[in-house]
Each structure stands twice: as C-alpha cells, then as structure tokens.
C-alpha cells in the first residue's frame, strides 16, 4: 500500500514518466516472486493466519458488547496494528532481507536494472499487503465484537498505517546489519520487539509508567502509530483529553513529527549499514 503510493507519486519529474512506469513494473515482478516465497514459507504463513484468528478469539473472550467503555474498540485496534507492524512487517522483513542477502539474491538483483529502492520495496510489498489484509480483517473482528464509535479523523489512521509501515520496513532493513542469518533473526529482532511492545501504549496506556519513562517512550517508533490510531478513531489525545475533528490535527502534530523523524533515521540507518551481500 505504501509502495503504490510512493510509486504513483513519483512522476513529479514529468519528463521521465517511462522510468516511473518501469519502476512500478519492476517492483511488481519482484513482489510477485517474493509473494510466492512467502506462501511457500510455512512458518510465515502460519504466523500470518494464526495471528488474526488468535486476536479475534481473544476479543470474543474479552468482548464486552454494549458495555464497552468509550475508546475500547480503538485501543484494541491500535494494539492489533502494533502487533501487525512488529511481527508481520518488521520481523518478517528482517528474515526476508537476510534470507535474500545470504542466498546472494540481493547481489544478483543489483546487477540488473532495478534500483536499490525498487529491490527493497519489491521484497517488502507482499508482507505489507499481508499486513493490510490482516488489519482489515481484525478491524472487522473488532467492529463485530466490540463495535466502534464513529471515528474522529480517519486521515490520521491512514497516516499512522502508512508512516508506521515505512518506519518498520526501514528498521527491518537496518536490523539486517546485525543479523547473521535467518535463524538469528529470532534473536536480533528482540530488542525492537521487546522495547516497542510495553513502551508504545499498544498493550496498556503509557500513563501506567512513571512520567520519566513515559516521556522517553513518546519518542520510540511504534508510540506515534498507536497515538495516531487512538486519536483518529476515538479522539483520545496523548494527554488523555478527548478532542474533536478540528482539534485532532493539532494533537497529531507531535506524533507525526516523531514518525517523520523515525523515517529519517531509518533511511539514514539503511544507507549507512545495509549490506547487499554476505560478509566475505
């Protein structure tokens, strides 16, 4: 989803539309192959199917129906988006990038016509599509079990999904620098997973941490995604106040700024540390 937006936006240089068109075609060819590999990878497919089923099961057990407090549906959705970004996007892609690197596929692709960005995007696209499908399915699950109040600002949810996807694709690429092979990805991804899960507000509100911890947690990569989803769906802002559509933009400025900063960090880290072939 992110990718299509990116490629569609590219013909800002109208004198070279063919290059952009070729870019979309190259990304599609790479994504098609990567999708085949994803479908043939049993572990990845199991996670892909088990995660939403487990989620919906969890919701059924905790489903509070009509008694649901304001914003519970939004909180649940934010949690699921957090899980999807961490496991389906981040963890899957660390494995995929490292796997292709160790098989010399990335090196091979780099002697062809695809650009570096196209190679990384094509490899990421199937996981992103899978993440989107899961998000939609699980959101439907929440809608049917808990239900939503009418959303405050869906644009912010969209920004959270797109921005979060870009950040975690880039963090996955950067994490390959300290991941020796596909097996060690299980360990090398732990720091990001273990820091983001408790410190993003996805599992419980950051207000349950001491203020000093919560203040630092605001600047972690997953926190602004969770904040924006909550804000967009229920209007609950970072400081706990409930805002309307107009005020939600102002409340979104800080999380969006953090998200943009992480995209900058991710691009820099990818350029600085990403290796295209195994260490010799």
């Amino acid at each position, binding site marked *: 989803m992110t990718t299509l937006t990116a490629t569609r936006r590219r013909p800002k240089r109208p004198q070279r539309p063919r*290059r952009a068109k*070729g870019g979309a*075609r*190259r990304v*599609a*060819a*790479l994504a*098609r*192959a990567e999708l*085949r*590999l994803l479908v*043939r*990878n049993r572990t990845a497919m199991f996670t892909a199917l088990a995660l939403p089923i487990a989620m919906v099961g969890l919701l059924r057990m905790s489903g509070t129906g009509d008694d649901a407090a304001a914003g519970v549906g939004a909180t649940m959705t934010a949690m699921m988006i957090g899980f999807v970004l961490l496991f389906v996007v981040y963890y899957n892609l660390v494995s995929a990038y490292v*796997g*292709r690197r160790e*098989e*010399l*596929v*990335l*090196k*091979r*692709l*780099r*002697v*062809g*016509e*695809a*650009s570096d960005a*196209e190679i990384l995007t094509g490899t990421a696209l199937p996981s992103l599509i899978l993440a989107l499908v899961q998000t939609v399915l699980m959101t439907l699950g929440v809608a049917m079990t808990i239900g939503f109040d009418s959303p405050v600002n869906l644009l912010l949810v969209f920004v959270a999904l797109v921005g979060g996807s870009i950040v975690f694709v880039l963090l996955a690429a950067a994490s390959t620098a300290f991941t020796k092979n596909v097996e060690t990805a299980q360990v090398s991804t732990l720091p990001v997973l273990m820091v983001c899960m408790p410190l993003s507000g996805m599992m419980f509100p950051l207000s349950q941490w001491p203020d000093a911890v919560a203040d630092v947690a605001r600047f972690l990569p997953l926190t602004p995604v969770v904040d924006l989803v909550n804000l967009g769906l229920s209007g609950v802002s970072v400081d706990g106040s409930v805002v309307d559509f107009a005020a939600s933009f102002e409340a979104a400025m800080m999380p969006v700024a953090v998200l943009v900063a992480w995209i900058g960090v991710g691009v820099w880290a990818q350029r600085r540390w990403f290796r*295209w072939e195994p260490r*010799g």
Partner: protein
Amino acid sequence: MPDVIEVTDLRRSYTGGFEAVSGVTFTVRRGELFALLGTNGAGKTSTLEVIEGLTVPSGGTVRVLGHDPYVDRAAVRPRTGVMLQAGGFPSDLTVGETAAMWAGTLSAPRPVDEALDMVGLAGRGDVTVKQLSGGERRRLDLALALLGRPEVLFLDEPTTGLDPESRRDTWRLVRDLLRDGTTVLLTTHYLDEAEELADRLAIMHRGRIVRTGTVADIVATQPSTITFDRPDPTSSPPLPELPGALVVDDSQDVVIHTDMLQRSLTELLEWARDHGVELHGLSARSASLEQAFLAVAAEHEPRTPQTEEVPA
C-alpha cells in the same frame, strides 16, 4: 569508436586494508572477447565486480559504454548482462519463476523460453532451483544474463562446475553471441577456455596485470622448447653452443629453451648429423599459454632451490 570498457589504474581494497586489485588498466573493444586469466585470489572477480558497478573502486576509474557503472547505473544496466561467480536465486522458486521474475525487471527482455532454450534448460522450467545440479545453476545464471539482450556481457567463471559437454555448449553459445556483435568480458582460470574464446587477454597475479595481449602475443614472451634424451657422454662430443638458448642438462633429458626455435634446432640437427649422434625422444615445440601462465606464477614467487638450472 570509443572502447566499450575502459579501466584505468583500478584499485580495490577491502575493509581491513587488504588490497585485492592494485592498479589495473585495460580496455575492451566493441565486439571482442577479453579474458581476465589468473589463479584463485589473483583479483579477477574483485576487478570484475567494480566494472559491473556493484561497488566503487578505492582508486582509478571505470567506464562502461562511456558511463560510470556505479553512478550512472540506470544508463548502463539496460545494456549489460552479468553472470556472477555464484548465482543468487531463491532456492524455493522454480527455474521458470526465477527467469520470469528477472524478465520482469528488464526493459526489453527476450522471451523466457528462448533464454532457457539457449542454455539447454528448456523443459526444466518447473524444477525448483534447489533441485538443480551445480552445472544447471550456472546455466540458469547464464540464461538470466542473456535475458536482457545485452550489448556487453560479463561472465565470471562461466564454466566452473560444468561437465565437458556443457562447457563446449557454453563456448559455442558465447561464440554465437560474439558473432552477433556482443562484447564479452570473461574471467576464467581455465587456460583452454581463454585460448578457445579470447581475442585478447590479461593474466592477473596478486592484483596486477602481468601480461596482456593476444594469446599469440603472450605466448611469444615465452621461449620455445627442444627436448631429447641425453646422449651417452662417453660416445658423443659435448653439445654445441646455441646462441640465445638456455640448455638444461640433467641426468635423463636435455631441455633447451630458445627464443629462436628454427635456428637452434637447425644447429642442433647439423651437430648431430656431423657427429653421427642419434637424438632419441626428440621434440620441438612453441610455447603454450599454459607455459606462459606458469612462468608468471614462478617469476613472482620466491625462488625454490629444488629447480636448479645447470647451463651446459
């Protein structure tokens, strides 16, 4: 017409300081096959990877079709085809899926079936890459390199791991491509491959080019050799002086290295006739590429005492 590939004083160092390529200069003309020949570790692949545009050189310049292959990647890649030393294919894709993926990234690919047919993999399209033999993987790699109808083809040890018949087939394919005007830069450690295919070649040793030219040029740097069984010293006079020749006389054979094969041989035969000496096991031959190649290695190694040469 400018040269298709121009390499000037190319250097490549790895992290840790090891310099794999130490100032290499050569050009490849349009339509010729240029071979980089050398032992393992001579710096052939390190050189080729820079020319392919995979990495920046630590010194010197590379131009491919007039462009910097790393910086102007988008301009160069649609016109080049690369066969890496080790193929990079996802092992869970089939041959056909791999080729289709690659074709999808190219501007003007040939049909996938045509490319697979060229390398003799027609009918293997449904086999997964992990089930292929080493030789079949090399041929799949070659098929991908040919998919984009390249003007310039880079082949890094293209026949390593192939059976003799597949090697011949590959050579035939490369010759067909040359006839159609493709320019080829090839690395190999097979001397017969270079002799068979190369218009010009460079012998690399420890990151440097130590010989360059046509096969004939390089062979001409080496002396020709005359050998015969050592005549019985009690019944025959001492060997004649042979100008420009080095005579090695051990207990069994006499070996004469000469830059003037015809003259040395004539004098030797006249001496034999005049003294009535029968030269058993006589042979005379021009130098070979192998001899030139081994001489390069020998002259750059510290001398080992076991090969002592005794002038006659």
